[in-house]
């Protein structure tokens, strides 16, 4: 079994020299009630500045009401090599899907 791996981009964070600010992944909540959605990544010296950079880079056009930033190196990602064993077994288990209910037509928002 392969080790859980860091996202590839995390290696940027360890590069030396003037471009050595760590990489942060940015999540934006579009409006109240929605989940935070990953929108991209950026460099920043620390979490506070990452939030501010996130504001400047990803919410210039009123895209959000809330921001999360997470150090890219703190994310543990599944490996492409494990894709089959992770995800394929779900394909034929129809009983996991809520497809056996009759939904009355006049029920909204379902």
């Amino acid at each position: 079994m392969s080790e859980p791996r860091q996202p590839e981009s995390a290696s940027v964070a360890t590069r030396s020299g003037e471009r050595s600010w760590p990489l942060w992944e940015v999540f934006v909540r579009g409006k109240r009630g929605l989940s935070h959605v990953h929108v991209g990544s950026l460099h920043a010296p620390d979490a506070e500045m990452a939030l501010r950079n996130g504001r400047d880079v990803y919410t210039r056009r009123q895209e959000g009401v809330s921001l999360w930033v997470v150090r890219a190196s703190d994310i543990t990602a599944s490996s492409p090599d494990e894709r089959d064993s992770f995800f394929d077994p779900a394909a034929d288990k129809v009983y996991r899907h809520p497809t056996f209910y009759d939904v009355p037509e006049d029920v909204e928002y379902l």
Partner: protein
Amino acid sequence: MTDNAVHTSVVAPYALQLGDDALVYAQRLGEWISRGPQIEEDMALGNVGLDLLGQARVLLTRAGELDGTGRTEDELAYLRDEREFRNVHLVEQPRSDFGFEMARMLWFSAYQCGLYAALVDSSDETLSGVAVKAVKEVDYHRDHASHWVLRLGDGTAESHERMQAGLERVAPYVAELFEDDAVSVAAAAAGAGVLPSSLWPAASAYVERVVAEATLAMPAEPTWRSRGGRNGIHSRPMGYLLAEMQHIARSHPGATW
């Protein structure tokens, strides 16, 4: 003169000088794009510059409406010569290192925070309208500058030294921002403007607090200070700034896209 005419003659030059401060600093901040420490900082400084440009557009438009010449924002920005600009020297100083820029932004945004907070109650609808929107913008500018001053001041030995040097280089230009020029005095008397000197206590207290927290020192009283911007007397870099800012508009008069 009627009350209305007094108002008009007072507000036009006041809007012009506030607009010039914002316009010229926007031009300087635009120079950072592709020159910041990271592309993220290019974006941040570009955003600050665009906020200021937005303020300048409304203020210059207002000045052109009221001064009797009917000039548009573009004509005021691109077709005036150096002596007709009314900005303070602080904003026209050339882009230097990042420490200098953060020191300049800290002082300018601390000044603008007080300015726009007070202008919300201006008797001139356009000025109060700009202020309502700008208060939130400049609060963010001040926050951005503060965070950098803290990090650079309380960072490495070199960043501390360069941030301190930035504060020292900005110091001679600070007094001019808070000087009660004739135009501001008249605007304040008419209820349309703010006395710059009234903004000094809060702005300087804010800067002192950030500087202390950043383990830096407030510069000693400068041995010289800038003056004359509000009268159209500028420092040497201003001509070069205008040349760059205006040359396209002057080379292609009336061009649109």
